[in-house]
């Protein structure tokens, strides 16, 4: 009981120091909201756009070529006639000008038919469609690749149909095996395929039905921004408090506490409890303001969001203690706190979503508690995940907390010497 009282008194003392330090209160309570307001403002309306994908096509063939027929068949004559989700296909007549527009950054990408397209299709030679795009135009490139894949697939089907038919007809003796007869039969089948008048038809065996369940609504930017800055600043605040622990060790405050019958474990517990309560206050303020002012949606499982937040606080407080045991001077504690906080925050997806990172970077990010926390929040608050989906993130934070806590308990020193 006496130890618990000591722990409580030490925690209370730390909280009083924090509450009286206006700069700290400003930095960890008010300052994050300046960022949240700024980014919510900047990202407002993001996700509310529902423009159709716009694809530019061109051909290097002279007029009358097969590519002109293909583009003519799929180009969008009137946007109002399109079904929901259909892309707008634009025919750029001047290939070179469109290519230059991509280079100049005026156009994201272009799909072009080669100059030998018709010739290659007729003779069965291999050729290639050209996708020319800006490296950063991820969506345009994917869309152009998908339409190129569809055209390629159709040409392949036509070729297989003709080759198989000719091969089987020659094999059965229905047409003579001389090249003149084969060429004539091939030409007939090709013409039928191109005109869509092939026997058996060229209708697809798959149909697509589109059910519209409503309009696209803009997401609330705060649903991403607030968890990101919560993770960053809860961790930052805890990490920076390591500086004070080192200071108390350097000016012998901790030693004096030991001399006054307070146990080492009570000091450790008191500092930890103080940092933990301060973190709790931070998350309560974050979520209350988030819900009341920024209209944050906690998703389908609010308890999971709360548990994840509390685990973030538990882990951060353990990290602060570990940092204080590793740093010898106040200056190195401050540098390490700023360094780790500012490096782990972007790596862990606090500044921008980590799900945008390439695979290898997402894997590296997993060594940070931030990545687990933000991915948990994102799953819950942006993608409608349930409690079970957030369990790996919770478990990971718990493991981080245990590792940091064990190191802190093992290495904690009350004396600078």
């Amino acid at each position, binding site marked *: 009981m006496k130890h618990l009282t000591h722990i409580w008194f030490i925690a209370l003392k730390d909280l009083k120091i924090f509450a009286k330090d206006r700069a700290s209160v400003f*930095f960890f309570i008010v300052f994050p909201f300046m960022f949240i307001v700024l980014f919510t403002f900047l990202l407002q309306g993001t996700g509310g756009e*529902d423009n159709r*994908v716009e694809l530019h096509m061109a051909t290097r063939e002279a007029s009358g070529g097969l590519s002109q027929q293909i583009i003519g068949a799929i180009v969008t004559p009137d946007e109002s006639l399109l079904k*929901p989700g259909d892309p707008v296909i634009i025919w750029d007549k001047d290939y070179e000008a469109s290519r230059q527009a991509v280079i100049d*950054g005026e156009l994201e990408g272009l799909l072009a038919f080669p100059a030998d397209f018709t010739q290659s299709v007729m003779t*069965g030679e*291999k050729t*290639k469609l050209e996708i*020319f*795009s*800006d*490296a*950063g135009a991820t*969506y345009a*490139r*994917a*869309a152009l*690749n998908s339409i190129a*894949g*569809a055209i390629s*697939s159709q*040409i*392949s*089907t036509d*070729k*297989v149909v003709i080759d*198989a*038919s000719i*091969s*089987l007809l020659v094999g*059965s003796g229905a047409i003579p095996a001389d090249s003149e007869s084969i060429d004539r039969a091939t030409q007939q089948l090709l013409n039928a395929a191109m005109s869509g008048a*092939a*026997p*058996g038809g060229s209708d*697809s*065996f*798959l*149909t*697509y*039905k*589109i*059910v*519209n369940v*409503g309009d*696209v*609504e803009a997401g609330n930017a705060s649903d991403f921004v607030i968890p990101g800055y919560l993770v960053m600043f809860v961790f930052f605040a805890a990490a920076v408090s390591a*500086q004070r622990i080192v200071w108390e060790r350097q000016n012998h405050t901790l030693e004096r506490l030991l001399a006054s019958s307070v146990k080492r474990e009570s000091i450790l517990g008191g500092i930890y409890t103080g940092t933990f309560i301060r973190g709790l206050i931070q998350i309560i303020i974050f979520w209350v303001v988030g819900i009341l002012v920024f209209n944050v949606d906690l*998703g*389908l499982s609010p308890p999971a969001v709360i548990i994840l937040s509390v685990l973030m606080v538990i882990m951060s407080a353990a990290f602060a203690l570990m940092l204080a045991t590793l740093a010898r001077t106040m200056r190195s504690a401050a*540098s*390490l706190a*700023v*360094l780790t906080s*500012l*490096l782990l925050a*972007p790596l862990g997806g606090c*500044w921008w979503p980590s799900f945008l990172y*390439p695979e290898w*970077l997402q894997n590296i990010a997993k060594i940070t508690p931030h990545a687990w926390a933000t991915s948990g929040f994102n799953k819950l608050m942006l993608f*409608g995940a349930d409690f079970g989906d957030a369990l790996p993130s919770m478990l990971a934070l718990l493991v981080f907390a245990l590792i940091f806590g064990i190191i802190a308990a093992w290495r904690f020193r009350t004396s600078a010497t």
Partner: protein
Amino acid sequence: MKRALFITLNEVRLYLQDKGDLAFGLLLPVLTFALMYGAFGGETMFKATANIVNEDSGVYSQQLIEKLDSIDGISIDVMTAADADIKLERSDILLALFIPADFSETLSSGGKAELVFKQRGNGGLEGQILAGIIRSIAGEIDQEFQALHRVEGNLEGNDIPQSDIELTVRSLLEEERQQPSLGVAEEVVGGSTEFINQYLPGIITMYVLFALSLSAQAIVEERRRGTLERLLTTRLSAGELFFGKFISITARGFIQTLILLILSYAVFRLFTPVSFLACLVISFVFAAAAAALGMIIAAISRTEEAANWIAVVVTMFMVMMGNTFFQVGEDSVLATIGKFSLNTYANKAYTTIIAQEGALGDVWLQLVILAGVAVAGLFISRMIFRAVPGSK
């Protein structure tokens, strides 16, 4: 002046010996830039999650899901119809593919099967592309049925066994899949170069400003411990002490930028000799402006902690408003606020030299503003700077 330079030399020597400071000033910008370059530089891949409700237990729905899952960047989230409806209702997802229960059976029996896209509006940009990819993959399954059907039509009345038709068509389809008659060649422009030009100056200025404004903490510490007061008992005047500190902070910033610019040159080959020299001039003026800011922070802060917080707050404000991570529209409110950020001018100057191959003459306005801040900041901080707490 000579004594002030001694202080500068001593501070620079200490800086170069302090591994922690060097790590903060050099390692952190390199790591941050590497992180951003890895994340957003070069060619980025389309990434999306396909939300699928599979009510079919047959082979073709499984084939469709497996093929989709094998595409790089696409992950699959199979869910129940009820879950999908709730998520669509809440706008958690914008598009879901429903594969009906009789999908495989219908295809196997030669009938026309249906795939259903439940979506909000057009399904969002990601959803539209995903739907295109799904159609393309489904098209591959359809290809076999279509080819068989058409070949059967072409051979009608020729009494060719069905097994021969199927064997020939499947063998030719496989050949086509291995080596398609119509391939796709992709060529990309831009990417990494644009990314480097856009973000490298911002990262460099961010950490230089951070380091210099945080150096105020060391001055406050020396004042609180009486080190500055002791120095005044020597022949060093308060003015020399002040200018020595200012020049040392400027020199630190300049050295930090110089090393980062040399590293950038070594890795990305960004500069010509002339543009490199121009960047050094910008670096020097920016370092002086940032040092003046650091001196103001040192002058107004009573404790190290206060200096620390003010430095972090000021730097983060200037970084966020200074076109570091995102471009602010020219006529927006944020652009007006951004005019109070040193980084706005430094980043603009660097970008003009590096990306637009400009000359120093093209960035005279930015240089004049930064130099003006340096002079004004120096004047203000000298007015309020105290070497001894409470002294005049």
